[in-house]
C-alpha cells in the first residue's frame, strides 16, 4: 500500500512536485506516466527514503517515509532509473552482498539467489562479472536485487528503458509474475501504451501535478469526451456542412483535405447523442455512406492530457 498526501518537493524556488495525492491499494500495479522532468523519479526517490519531501507525507505500508525510513526500506524494492554496479563482483556475489545487507542468513541466500536468477533469466550468467553483462541483463539483475528481501512493494523507475523489444516483453512477463504474487508495484515510464498493458491503474503526471488517474479505460473515456468524427457523403457536401454547423457540441468542422467527399469535426456529445445526431442527419436527407469515429490510441490520449502544458 502506498499513499501520498499533499506531497511537495521544491528545489529552491522550483517546484518539482506539487501537492501530489496518490493512493495505491495492495496488490495493484500502478503505472506512473509523465514527460521528462515531470517529477516521476522525484516521487520515487521520496518513497524510497532517498529524498526528504519539502512538505506533505508519504506512506509505504502505513509507515511514514520520513519518520520510519528504516521500516520503509525493509518493505520496498527500489530500482532507480539509472544505476551502477560494483564491477569487481560476480553476479552471484552482487546479489549475495545485497541479500546480506537485508539481513538474510547465508544458507537462505544460497537457496534464494539461484531462484531469483532463474526468475530474471540470468542463471547462465551467474559466474560472470557484473561489469560485462549487457545493459538489459544489468537491468534484470537489478530487478532481481530489488526482490531479494521479498518486499511487498516494488518501486521501479523506468525498468524497461533501454531494453530492446524482446527484453521489454520479457520484463513485462516478469512483472506479470510478480503481480500474480500479490505485490504492489509502482512503475514509471513515458511510454503510455507499454504501461497500459500491464497496469491496473495509471496516473498521469505533468510538471509535478497529477492530472489524471484511474483505470486505463476510465482515463481513455475521460479523454474520449472529445472525439473526431469523419462523415463521408455521396452528394450535397455543402448542404451537410450547413446542417452540422447548426448542431450543438460540434466544433472544428472542415472538409477533409485528402478526400473531397468527406467532412471532419470534433464532437463532445455522448454515444447516445451521437446516435441521435446520425438519425437526424439521415432524416434530413443527407447522403451519408459512412459515419465514423477516429480511433484514439493511448499515445494520443497522453498527448491530449498533456496538451497546452509548457514542457520547457
Amino acid at each position, binding site marked *: 500500500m502506498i499513499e501520498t498526501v499533499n506531497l511537495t518537493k521544491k528545489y529552491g524556488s522550483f517546484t518539482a512536485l506539487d501537492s501530489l495525492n496518490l493512493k495505491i491499494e495492495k496488490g495493484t500495479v500502478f503505472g506512473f506516466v509523465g514527460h521528462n522532468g515531470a517529477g516521476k523519479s522525484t516521487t520515487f*526517490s521520496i518513497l*524510497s*527514503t*532517498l*529524498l*526528504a*519531501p519539502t*512538505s506533505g*507525507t508519504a506512506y509505504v505500508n502505513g509507515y511514514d*517515509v*520520513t*519518520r520510519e*525510513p*528504516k521500516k520503509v*526500506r*525493509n518493505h*520496498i524494492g*527500489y530500482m*532507480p532509473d*539509472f*544505476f*551502477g*554496479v*560494483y564491477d*569487481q*563482483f560476480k553476479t552471484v*556475489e552482487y546479489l549475495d*552482498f*545485497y541479500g*546480506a*545487507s*537485508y*539481513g538474510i542468513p547465508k544458507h537462505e541466500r544460497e537457496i534464494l539467489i539461484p531462484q531469483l536468477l532463474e526468475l530474471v533469466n540470468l542463471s547462465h550468467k551467474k559466474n560472470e562479472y557484473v561489469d560485462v553483462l549487457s545493459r538489459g541483463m544489468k537491468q534484470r539483475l*537489478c530487478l532481481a*536485487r530489488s526482490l531479494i528481501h521479498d518486499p511487498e512493494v516494488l518501486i521501479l523507475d523506468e525498468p524497461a528503458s533501454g531494453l530492446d523489444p524482446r527484453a521489454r516483453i520479457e520484463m513485462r512477463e516478469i512483472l506479470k509474475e510478480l503481480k500474480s504474487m500479490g505485490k504492489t508495484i509502482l512503475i514509471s515510464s513515458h511510454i503510455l501504451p507499454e504501461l497500459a498493458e500491464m497496469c491496473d491503474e495509471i496516473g498521469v503526471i505533468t510538471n509535478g501535478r497529477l492530472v489524471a488517474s484511474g483505470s486505463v479505460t476510465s482515463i481513455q473515456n475521460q479523454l474520449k469526451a472529445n472525439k473526431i468524427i469523419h462523415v463521408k457523403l455521396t452528394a450535397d457536401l455543402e448542404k451537410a456542412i450547413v446542417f452540422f454547423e447548426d448542431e450543438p457540441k460540434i466544433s472544428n468542422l472542415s472538409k477533409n483535405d485528402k478526400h473531397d467527399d468527406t467532412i471532419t469535426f470534433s464532437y463532445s456529445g455522448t454515444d447516445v447523442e451521437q446516435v441521435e445526431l446520425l438519425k437526424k442527419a439521415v432524416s434530413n436527407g443527407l447522403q451519408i455512406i459512412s459515419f465514423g469515429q477516429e480511433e484514439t490510441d493511448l499515445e494520443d490520449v497522453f498527448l491530449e492530457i498533456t496538451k497546452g502544458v509548457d514542457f520547457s
Partner: protein
Amino acid sequence: MKSLWINPVLNKEIKLRFRSFKGFLGVIFYLFALGLVALGFIIVSTMYGQAAIFRPEESRMMFTVLSFVQMVLILFMTPGLTSGAISGERERQTLNILLTTPQSSVTIIISKLVSSISYLLLMMIASLPLYSIVFLFGGVSPSLLISTFCIYLITMIAIASLGVMFSTLIRKTIISTIVTYGVTVFLAGGTAFLTTIIGQLFMYQQYSQSIVPYLTAMFNPFFILLSNFESYLTDEIQRLSGIDFPLMASFIIIYVLISVLAIGISIKKLRPRMKAQKRIG
C-alpha cells in the same frame, strides 16, 4: 557491536579493495618506496662512514628517516584512499541502492573508514620486515617502535575521517580529493611552516611568550613524530609557550576530536535529514 564490525558493507569494501589491481599496486608502491629509502640510507652511510659496518647510532638514524618517509607515505596515501569513499559510489550510481538497504548510516561510514585503514595497516605490517634491519643493529627500543606506530594510527584515522567527510559533503570525487589533500598539506606542511616562522620570531625576544607555536605544532604529525625521538624540540616549544601540558597529549586529543567530528558529520549527512517536519499535536 558484532554487527557493526562484521557487517556486509565492510565485507564488500574489503573484498572490492583487496581484489582490485590498484589495491595490489598500492602495496607494491609503498614497499618499494620504503625499501628504496632504507637501501639508499645503508649504502650512503656505509660509504661515508669509517667502518663498513652499521652501528647503533646509524641504526637509530635510519629508523628516524624511515619513520618520516613512512609518515609522508601515509599522508600521501590516506586522502587518496578515502576521499572517494562516498562520492565515488555516488558517481558510479551505486550509492542510491546502498542507501535504500536497511544498513545504517553509521555502519556504512564506519565500514568505509575501517576498510581504508585496514588497507593502510596492511601496508604498514608489510613494511615491518624492513624495520627488522633496525632491530638487528640495535639503537631502537620496541616501545619507540610502538609509540611511532600509534602516532601513525592516530594521524591516519584523522585524515581518513576527513577524507570520508569531504567525500560525503562534496558530490565530485575530484574536488573532494583536492580538498582532502589541501587540508593534509596544511596539517603536515602549513603548521610546520607557521611554527617555525613564529618560533623564530619569538626566539630572539627572551621575555615575551606566545602560545601560538604550541598551537600550530600540536597539529603537526612530523613535529610529534620528531618529539617522540628527541625531546629538545618540544621542550623548546613548551618553554616558548609557557604551557606545561605535553604536546603529545594535545596532539592526541585534537586528532581524536577531529576524527570524531568528521565521522559524526559524515554519518549525519549521508542520508537526507528526515525529521524536518514535526507533526503538530
